């Protein structure tokens, strides 16, 4: 067994915490418990959530998480700890899906979103908070039914009302959206500008382009 490391109790800000941990956990024990709690929970666990619940300094938990993540990433491991929606989540590695399928029948096929639904979701992700009329305006189609589907699947949620005439409801993406799409946070989304470049590259005739004056792309936020 690994000797208990001399670890100054540091919190996130790098300051020593005054409270003594309730359980005296040595490093190996802490690591084991962190692994166990990530294994059992269905939602991504944030590092500070773990630290608070276990009454441990955030820095210590952070170190454990880093170590665990690295260990799971080794090629001879079938599981992986990924950072999703601001937390850590255990799952099988995508590359083994063929083999896993041989063991587990009826892997519930996820309801697939149609392209219009995905486009609407993308729009909301990049322009949030945004109202339904604004979504329809940009998409150029009457597709409010898509919004209902996204709400039903908890990929988007309401976010108050916009202070304009009629006070329309604002929508934003949810934590579930980050989970379903494996995103750490919204800033992990590529910027819209990158998609523009992509579109322009697919334009094969290399005609001189009048550089668009005002780049309409925004940073994801």
């Amino acid at each position: 067994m690994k000797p208990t490391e001399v670890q100054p109790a540091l919190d996130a800000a790098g300051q020593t915490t005054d409270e003594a941990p309730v359980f005296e956990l040595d490093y190996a024990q802490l690591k084991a418990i962190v692994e166990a709690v990530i294994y059992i929970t269905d939602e991504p666990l944030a590092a500070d959530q773990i630290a608070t619940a276990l009454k441990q300094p955030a820095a210590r938990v952070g170190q454990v998480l880093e170590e665990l993540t690295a260990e799971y990433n080794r090629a001879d491991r079938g599981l992986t700890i990924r950072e999703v929606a601001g937390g850590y989540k255990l799952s099988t590695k995508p590359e083994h899906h063929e083999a896993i399928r041989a063991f587990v029948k009826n892997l519930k096929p996820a309801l697939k979103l149609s392209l219009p639904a995905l486009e609407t979701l993308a729009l909301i992700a990049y322009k949030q908070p945004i109202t339904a009329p604004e979504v329809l305006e940009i998409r150029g189609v009457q597709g409010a039914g898509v919004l209902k589907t996204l709400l039903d699947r908890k990929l988007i949620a309401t976010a108050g009302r916009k202070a304009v005439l009629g006070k329309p409801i604002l929508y934003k993406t949810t934590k579930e959206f980050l989970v379903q799409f494996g995103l750490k946070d919204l800033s992990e989304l590529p910027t819209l500008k990158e998609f523009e470049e992509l579109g322009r590259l697919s334009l094969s005739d290399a005609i001189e382009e009048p550089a668009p004056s005002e780049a309409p792309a925004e940073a994801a936020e």
Partner: protein
Amino acid sequence: MSSPLNFHLAQYDGPLDLLLDLIRKQEINIYDIPIASITQQYLEYMQRAAELDIELSAEFVYMAATLIHIKSRMLLPRDPELDKITGEEDPRQELVDRLLEHERFKNAAEMLQQKRLVEEVAWSNPQINQFLSEEEEQGLDVTIFDLVKAFQAVLERAKNRPMYEVRQDDVSVPDMIRYLENVFRDLPKSEALSATELFERQKSRRAMICLFLAILELVRRQALVLTQRDAFGDIGLKKHRAFDETLGQSLAEAEQEYI
């Protein structure tokens, strides 16, 4: 090269989708759209759709009008004086901006789809249920949206439910037995109703007395059971196992006794 119209009809999610497809398939420079030919192709598509009885939404018609309007503006000689004031505005500019924006989100949607594909083959097997007590396990994760849905569902149900109207004045014990039958019929056996609430719902003293007698009658005949969670707690009423069998008989006998 195949005709640009050699596509599966009605696969477009709106006019922007169709236009973008026409432009990209023919490798047209989006910043210099030959508006006349694109308009013609667009109208041909609409016509083909009409021939095949495919209903296109109003947005397709509106876009056709927009295209024709742009085309006519392109044909008009430009007034150099006006251009000085308003700036050299290309009549196509707004459409191009919308198309580019649309394309960006199409690409973003594809990116999301790719990400989703990866997620779909990464499986989790959380075991949290082993560590939850029974009561914690139940329940829904709720949002405002669920709240509105629930409200709508309740109103819908209320609208469709045949209401058993108890007249105020000459309400009788058999009336109240029928009333209780109505209240409990669709209730799961495990669910208890608050007796207090049932009483509060009555609009007259007489109705309350009849309800009280009806409850006593049904408890005695084992159609209902009384429950109480804690001492001095609210009295609840639940269906007895034999609810269905004993209720009819109770009613028949009460009709004779309480006339």
